[in-house]
């Protein structure tokens, strides 16, 4: 498990993170989550990510696949294993831990300076 995590971390620089954000309509929480996610990704992942937003109001049948209960839910689909983060993603650190992302040097510096 540990070695896998390490290899994931090693590959991380090359691989693209596939993220899916489940929302239900244009609610304030959903909008906040999307904004927070974009900000975090821009800061820490540069171009190594892809975000897909799924509106369950339009596609309710998609909720079953990722076992979505809470809204908003962010799912890291690639790399495996799948990880889930719920909430409006206002806590950047927890999002990073949740996505298993090592903050980049610049990101780290930002955090330290802040």
């Amino acid at each position, binding site marked *: 498990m540990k070695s896998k995590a390490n290899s994931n971390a090693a590959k991380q620089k090359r691989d693209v993170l596939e993220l899916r954000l*489940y929302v239900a309509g244009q609610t304030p929480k959903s909008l906040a989550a999307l904004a927070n996610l974009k900000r975090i990704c821009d800061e820490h992942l540069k171009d190594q990510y892809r975000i897909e937003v799924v509106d369950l109001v339009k596609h309710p049948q998609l909720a079953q696949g990722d076992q979505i209960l809470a*809204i908003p*839910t962010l799912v890291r689909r690639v790399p495996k294993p799948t990880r889930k*983060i719920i909430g409006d993603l*206002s806590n950047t650190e927890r999002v990073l831990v949740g996505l298993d992302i090592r903050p980049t040097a610049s990101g780290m510096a930002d955090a330290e300076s802040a």
Partner: protein
Amino acid sequence: MRQLRNANGRTSSVVLPGLEKAPTGIQGLDEITGGGLPRGRTTIVCGGPGCGKTMVGLEFLVRGIEEYGEPGVLLAFEETPQEMTRNVASLGFDLEGFVRRKKLSLDFLPVEPSEIQETGDYDLEGLFIRLQHAVDSVGAKRVVLDTVEALFSGFSNTAVLRAELRRLFRWLKERNLTAVITAEQGEGTLTRYGLEEYVSDCVILLDHRIHDQISTRRLRVVKYRGTSHGADEYPFLIDDTGISVLPLTSLTLNHKVSAERVATGVADLDVMMQGKGYYRGSSILVSGTAGTGKTTLGCHFAEATCRRGERCLYVGFEESTDQMFRNAASVGIDLKSYVKKGLLIHEAWRPTQYGVEMHLLKIHKLVERVRPHAIIVDPISNLIGGSTHRDVRSMLVRLVDFLKGKGITAMLLSLTRGLDHLEITEEHISSLIDTWILLRDIEQSGERNRCLYVLKSRGMAHSNQLREFVITDRGIRLLAPYLGAGQVFTGSARLVQEAKDAAEALARKQTIEHKQNELRAKRQELQERIQNLRAEYQAEEKAMELLIQQAEKVESRFEQDTEEMVSSRRATARGPERQNRRHANGAQS
């Protein structure tokens, strides 16, 4: 406070107009709740682990689909649909089939805390969307959320959860869905997370208790707003046909009675009861000590019932089916052939297998399935024996009552432990028993003999005699009643007594004959004496007449002589006087 609320809920006996109910289809539960769960509302089914909460929910859905044409949705938080399908396949519930026919939507919502990171504000809109989707996909009328509390382990923000649950219940109500929510029982509370505070329409508590190493499941309707309901604890059973709750029917005495009579199977016993036997639909108690022939009497009745072409259910707690048939055959009662014809249904299980309520519940279920004309329970004392439950007796009363209500002739055999107990064990049901036959041993001169006595039999002039009977290879045979010197003689003592009586009778007869002879002799003697006397008298009479004649001759000679003397002496004075005296003498002779 909750206690008070419950008490109020329980005592309310008025059904609010418009309170519609959704029948659960679960045997017995609809009777307790007066028609089912509140339609369009949410019912909480709570209880400890393994008490059958999920089963109640599942059967509610399955029966809804099968019997009431109401599609359903099951949201499972703990078991996968595959697991659940497998679990209930043994009960004959084909969940997959329902899903295929779009009658049921199964959705599994695993909540695994380790997978979820929480960052900031969220809600459970996903749950609502999925529920809505599931409801729409099958047009569901019924919803079951199996252990919705699992959410509490997955989400740490309980404030959000509680708000969402409140919203969920409101949501279900708004859509007029009849819902069942299962919940784990908490310490001192109905549910661990106090869900009953949100849902206050109907709360059903399940319980799984072990007593004397025998488990009994119980169900109680803690609360049912706006309707009267049974407030007792009702035992229930989960078996291969699902759940059945033993409804404790109200003990109203309005059974329909039949004037029809059914043969007892023992011709002599029929004779003791006006020659016709028991009343159809009556309850017959046969009690007696060990080895007095209770089972044989039961077999006779079973055979008589089947011979009429009626179904008979024989519930045995002592002998296996094979053993009973063998034993019955040994006394000339062929039951096996009736089993083949489907008229006799023999069910045997160990008395220790279940608690008393379960036994009665099983009998209940069997009766519902077999729909017999007559039932024989052999013996009911095994149900009572050893049980410390106070309500055991009333349970038995309810069984008898239930059978009477169905018009089933019930023969209950009861093993009594000794003469002291003879009329004690049964006293609590004796008021419901119509015919009570007592079998007993009479110990006398080194042997035990069986006796039968009709202690009571309502509505018929039955024999008051204690009858000896023997079990022959052609069944029970009653011996002719024999009573001597205020005592019953049985067995060889009876034979001795009979011989003695016969000798006495002979002696009496001989005495009479002797006296008659004596009398005849006396009469003869008397007649002879009368004849002798008469002869003697006649002889004497003749002699006397002779003497009289002679005297008259002498007299007439004398008179002649006198007249001659008178005429010769011309004396006439005393003539007429003498003539008179002569006339008187003539009349005397």
